[in-house]
């Protein structure tokens, strides 16, 4: 997030798209509810009628994959009506002209045709967002224009044009000067406890800790020096989905999986399974025998986050301490202890420098201290400084208070760059054979592949089994009633589950969460066309067909 969670309550206009906030990030939805109760406008753009729509002052429901037409048309209207922030554009940004030219063709009429969203709603959303208008009450900021904030999540990014979608939202915020101030910004809500931190400390194929490019000789050299190694690899590595392709092609021979369940969470599960079966070595280090574990050669029992010390970094870039609450069962060990042991042994066997002693760590805190040496955005942090409420990166020095709001005076790259983005269709469009669109996501009571939540008694009681949400129109066409069995086919595979007939999805769209091992949604999703930059799979859009088994 460019901004902080607790600023949301003071926003004048909140624009949520591609985030089912009340189910996937409930505590952030509390902030949204508070703002709306005080008079903020809430604009939701989503193909599904998500629970927060109950509080929305404006709901735009585009057909899946067409939201970008709506965003582009909003900006078209903003420029046409002169609602943009010309001072911000002139002083803080570049490449505006090339971007503005492209928008000329994206009229609200065109967007309405493509997305099914009425023109008036697009114009209304554009005005409220650009000018930060409220439904009632007074802005705490007392400025000419109110403060508008954008919240988004995987509905925007898990798309073959995910990067374009994000750039478009960034363009929108810069166009209106709704960034770099409290209660504004472009705010991705991140889905997992430490997904931000795992990225920050280098759990990505192209960057070392602190987002330092692996291809940058100077930065790589500095990290190598601190680690006392001769050299570090300089080519960008394989992403998750690429690695399964490479395993099938016989290029990847071993996969070491720590705390993940790719068989459930990666697209095209059947493909993932074939790839994993081909491996010479699959190591699974986890707290439970996940579905993936049943293909592993070796299982290493790990401590859960309730059983160890360390730090998590949340979606607002806040690094916070986690503490050991209870003991681990049996012989389970903290992940870092397992890795350090393996690393020391491999160092010995491969005769790597600086030798196995370098892998002796006595505590999580000593690892954190080392981490801050190679992670510039964390360099002013220590366990002591993280008391009591953590620090938000960048925190470059020991006296730096952390950064609640990014891009206040300048953007990370200097001037904010407008990207001239064109609308693009999803990779897999519906056709005669597969006439419906499947979209995947989460439900409130479960988390990711269900490894933890499906083993929690109260959560299991509330939501014991999977279901596909189907619009009454589509259900009726197939003679399906609520709670009936239904078979979902895509080009990749077949899943059988129960129906939940619901207006929450529009006609033509089916929702299936990816928590259910008995109805694994990712047997249906595609892994052939990823976003070209982020390499993210298009989980939100797959072409499918429904079958009523009673009609056979």
């Amino acid at each position, binding site marked *: 997030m460019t901004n902080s969670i607790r600023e949301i309550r003071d926003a004048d206009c909140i624009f949520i798209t591609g985030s089912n906030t009340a189910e996937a990030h409930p505590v952030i939805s509390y902030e949204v509810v508070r703002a709306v109760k005080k008079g903020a406008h809430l604009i939701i753009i989503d193909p599904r009628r998500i629970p927060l729509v109950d509080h929305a002052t404006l709901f735009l429901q585009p057909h899946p994959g067409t939201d970008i037409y709506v965003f582009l048309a909003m900006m078209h209207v903003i420029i046409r009506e002169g609602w943009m922030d010309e001072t911000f554009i002139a002083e803080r940004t570049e490449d505006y002209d090339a971007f503005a030219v492209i928008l000329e063709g994206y009229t609200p009429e065109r967007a309405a045709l493509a997305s099914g969203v009425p023109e008036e709603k697009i114009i209304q959303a554009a005005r409220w967002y650009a000018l930060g208008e409220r439904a009632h009450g007074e802005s705490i900021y007392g400025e000419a224009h109110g403060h508008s904030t954008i919240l988004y999540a995987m509905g925007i990014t898990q798309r073959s044009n995910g990067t374009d979608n994000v750039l478009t939202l960034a363009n929108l915020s810069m166009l209106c000067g709704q960034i770099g101030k409290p209660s504004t910004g472009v705010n991705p809500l991140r889905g997992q406890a430490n997904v931000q931190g795992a990225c920050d400390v280098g*759990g990505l194929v192209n960057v070392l800790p602190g987002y330092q490019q692996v291809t940058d000789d100077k930065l790589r050299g500095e990290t190598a020096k601190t680690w006392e*190694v001769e050299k570090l690899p300089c080519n960008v590595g394989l992403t998750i989905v690429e690695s399964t392709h490479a395993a099938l092609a016989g290029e990847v021979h071993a996969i070491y999986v720590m705390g993940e369940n790719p068989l459930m969470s990666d697209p095209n599960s059947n493909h993932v399974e074939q790839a994993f*079966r081909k491996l010479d070595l699959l190591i699974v280090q986890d*707290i439970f025998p996940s579905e993936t574990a049943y293909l592993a050669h070796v299982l290493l029992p790990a401590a859960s986050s309730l059983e160890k010390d360390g730090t998590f970094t949340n979606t607002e870039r806040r690094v916070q301490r986690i503490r050991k609450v209870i003991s681990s069962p049996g012989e389970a060990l903290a992940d870092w202890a397992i*890795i350090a042991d393996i690393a020391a042994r491999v160092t010995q066997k491969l005769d790597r420098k600086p030798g196995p002693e370098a892998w002796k760590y006595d505590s999580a805190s000593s690892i954190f201290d080392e981490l801050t040496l190679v992670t510039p955005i964390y360099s002013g942090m220590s366990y002591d400084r993280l008391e009591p409420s953590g620090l938000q990166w960048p925190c470059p020095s020991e006296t730096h208070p952390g950064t609640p709001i990014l891009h206040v005076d300048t953007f990370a790259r200097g001037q904010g760059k407008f990207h001239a983005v064109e609308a693009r269709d999803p990779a897999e469009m519906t056709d005669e054979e597969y006439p419906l669109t499947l979209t995947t996501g989460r439900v409130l009571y479960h988390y990711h592949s269900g490894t933890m939540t499906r*083993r929690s008694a109260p959560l299991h009681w509330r939501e014991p089994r999977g279901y596909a949400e189907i619009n009454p129109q589509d259900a009726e066409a197939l003679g399906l009633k609520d709670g009936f069995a239904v078979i979902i086919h895509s080009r990749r595979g077949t899943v059988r589950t129960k129906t939940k007939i619901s207006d929450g999805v529009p006609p033509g769209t089916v929702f299936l969460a990816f928590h259910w091992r008995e109805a694994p949604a990712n047997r249906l999703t595609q892994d052939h066309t990823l976003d070209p930059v982020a390499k993210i799979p298009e989980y939100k859009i797959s072409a499918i067909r429904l079958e009523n088994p009673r009609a056979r």
Partner: protein
Amino acid sequence: MITLSIDTKTIQVAPDTNVLKAALDNGIHIPHLCYHPELSISGGCRLCLVEVEGQDQPVLSCGLTAAEGMVIQTQSEQLKELRRGVLDLFISDHPLDCVVCDKAGSCTLQEYAYEYGLKETSYEPTVSSTLFQDDNPFFLRDHQYCILCGRCVRVCDEIVGVHAIDFANRGFETNIATPYDGPMIDSTCVFCGNCVQVCPTAALMPVSRLQRGREWDLDRTLSVCGYCGVGCQIEYATKDDDIIYAQAPEHGTANGPFLCTKGRYGWDFATNPERLKQPMLRRDVAHELGLSEEPWELPETSPLDIRKPNVEQYFVPVDWDTALEFVSSRLSEITESHGPDSIMGLASARCTNEDNYLFQKFMRAVIGTNNVDHCARL
């Protein structure tokens, strides 16, 4: 800023601040039951009365906006008597069974009864006609203990935004109910338990907490939730290495005093019997290494299609040294025979920064590959 005096202390507060908040924020305690700093003002409990210079009658401090030059007294004989009177009414229909109550030690009514020396009610004790409702495994609703402060109703509406409960009936029959008093699961309730968190008495209690130890026997550890990326701080109450219940700390950094259902109730996975407790080698690998006699082959059934997965059918337990030696030998062999880029590492968004840092350092500095990714995209 507004300057006022409370108990002779000079205090500066922002405009539109109520006197109760002004006092509490400055370390002056005024008793209150229905007021909650994150919720709207109700004024129903009548406990936060104060004396205002120039006014004949005591005033509710929660509903009184601080004004320039205001002089407030929060303690006096008159106020003590008035508050005693209010508390006397509260305890007239509240069971005084603190000796067996799980809330004892953190019950606000108990605290005030102690402070104002009320051992019993001077009225004829009456019990609520509505009994307890245990219709869900998250929390218990015991109406006898309810003082109708309405905090639960307000948090459900104003913060969570689902408005699953409200006041029902009138007079002595008033209770907090779902529409038509139906089961919780049929209401709009999302089982976040924020009502439980703000309840000052034992009317709303986590099921996991019942009869599991007195408040003062519990240890408390502040940590961060392991589910989504909001990073809510959670205070876990434990006893003998078991989690008894979880709640938000008073001032969670990202979450304030609130949580969602997964954070508050979804921690019991940790003690599920299916947890991996020992390193394990797959049966064919174990056989290859001479650790198991029977030959074995990985079944063709997809793990997604195994009806009742049983890890022991596939794996044999081994000691850590065997497992780590196996892993490190095989990784070393593959690195040497097929090159570092033939190895892929999947780090984890559910592990700590320290875990992930070491993981990628191992892949980069020891194996020698940038093939390290995690579920950020999933």
